[in-house]
């Protein structure tokens, strides 16, 4: 069997929406290992068929690049337009502007970057669905750092 990028995105969302940090999935010799908490998500690696040392294993390989989800070329990174402290919510305790799975439009606010008490809103810049939130709430983000990624193929 083969998985489409969309399937991977769905599986990722399963993990994001759960309370778990890692997910390992094996389907027909294809193993997918996903991990959250900022560490780059590892690739789906081909698994050798159990007793097939001699012949090349009939593996279903997910196309390069190896780090499947994190660098899915179709995902659009929302980058920090300036250095500052990133906030996911308009104020402490309030629900975040967006969560994984949220549909966004180009002008949807996805976060705030504070520079010297000046709040700068960050907008999605594209329409789609939020797939990953990389920047941690209340931490310093550098100029150009990826804050979150959006899948533009899914209608927002």
């Amino acid at each position, binding site marked *: 069997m083969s998985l489409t990028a969309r399937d991977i995105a769905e599986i990722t969302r399963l993990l994001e929406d759960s309370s778990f940090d890692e997910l390992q999935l094996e389907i027909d010799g294809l193993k997918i290992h996903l991990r959250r908490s900022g560490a780059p998500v590892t690739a789906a690696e081909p698994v050798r068929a159990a007793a097939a040392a001699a012949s090349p294993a009939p593996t279903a390989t997910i196309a390069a690049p190896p780090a499947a989800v994190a660098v899915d070329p179709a995902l659009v990174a929302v980058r920090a337009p*300036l*250095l*500052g*402290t990133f906030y996911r919510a308009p104020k402490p305790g309030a629900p975040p502007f967006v969560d994984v799975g949220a549909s966004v439009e180009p002008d949807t606010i996805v976060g705030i970057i*504070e*520079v*010297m008490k*000046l709040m700068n809103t960050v907008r999605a810049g594209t329409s789609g669905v939020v797939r990953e939130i990389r920047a941690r709430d209340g*931490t*310093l983000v*550098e*100029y*150009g*750092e990826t804050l979150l990624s959006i899948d533009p193929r899914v209608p927002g």
Partner: protein
Amino acid sequence: MSIRRILIANRGEIAARIARTCRELGIETVLAASEADRESLPARLVTRVVCIGPAHPSASYLQPGTLVQAALGTGCDALHPGYGFLSERADFARLCEQHGLIFIGPTSGQLAAAGDKLAARAVAQEVAVPLAPGGEVSSPDAARELAARIGTPLLVKAAGGGGGRGMKLVERAQDLDAALELAAAEAGAAFGDTRVYLERFVASARHVEVQVLGDGTGNVVHLGERDCSVQRRYQKIIEETPAPGLSAELCGQLHSAAMRFAARLKYRGAGTVEFLVDVRRNEFFFLEMNARIQVEHPVTEAVSGVDIVAAQIAIASGQGLRLARGESRREGCAIECRINAEDPARDFAPSPGLVKAVRWPQGEGIRVDTHVEAGTRVPPFYDSLLGKIITHGSDRAQALARLRAAVAMTRIEGVATNLALHADLLADPEFAAGGVDTAYLPRLLGRRASAAVRHG
């Protein structure tokens, strides 16, 4: 309080210079780098790099809030502004002060006093430091009256300017009105301050400056003078110490004047008081105070043995002056060449690009301060300084011989440089004799141009 981690709010050779001293002192460093400088040599000398914005300095190195935020967000307790960019901006120092961040430099009040050229003239007057005849003018009538007293040629200068910026030369009295109007308009646009003043133009003079260190409570020491007379359009390209051929008496007067000026401000940190020296008339005039570390500081370090960046950090962390008055040693002579990515044959047009290969000189008495290595990209957004070659010798002849050899050894491929000009300068008998004035370099460039035409 002791300083544990410093944000370097600068780039290029001075960022590398600051990082090296911090490493020796066991202080951690965070480099605030623009997108163009993330992979630069200074970025490899620091503990951590943060990207503060795009390459253009107005969106990165000139953003006070971003730099302070970067320092606070990375746990720095101090910030070193280097030279240029925000280093002499009182509002930037104030922002640091307000956020409990140690600004490695003078107080915001001292920056304001040194940066306002009229206020600085007033301070000089209070402590009997000689000023070129002149003063503020508030109306065209007053200007004409003052101009008549000063005589021509004279300069119209911007109160908010400095380092040659915001200056107009008036050679005939009838040109005064137009120059005033133009200068005020330019000063308003460049510095947000339309105040201008007149000053006598000293055509043949030497540019001599005195390095001072102050502890912030009125104690000041000097580390001797530097002669920076080899300049073109107020851009220095060779500096040396001691100033050749100046009498010990005149030098003593310059040192004393600089110390009086700095003491009056209760100056904190490293600073330089600049003078114009008219050797024939044995007189000198206060020019301005540069309230920061200067590009040419290594010549002073070579003869005094003082690490000026370390001294700045010590003062900023409240350790005061490590040297008492008159204690600094002065051994031998030191000369510095500024190697710039600019093309003297094309009116010194900046020459950004990729440095394909580079060989910096090595040897006894040679120091090179640079951020440039093979593969370094010289972006078009910043100044064109590639590096500085400094030589030290037991006397001027030895320092000069070493510098000639060092410049001859240097190769930089991929960008145009002023290396050949330096080779000519150092070989020129007039420079070798010592004591040239600020008209010397333009004259030498004229000679080179006509020689090129003859040979071309």
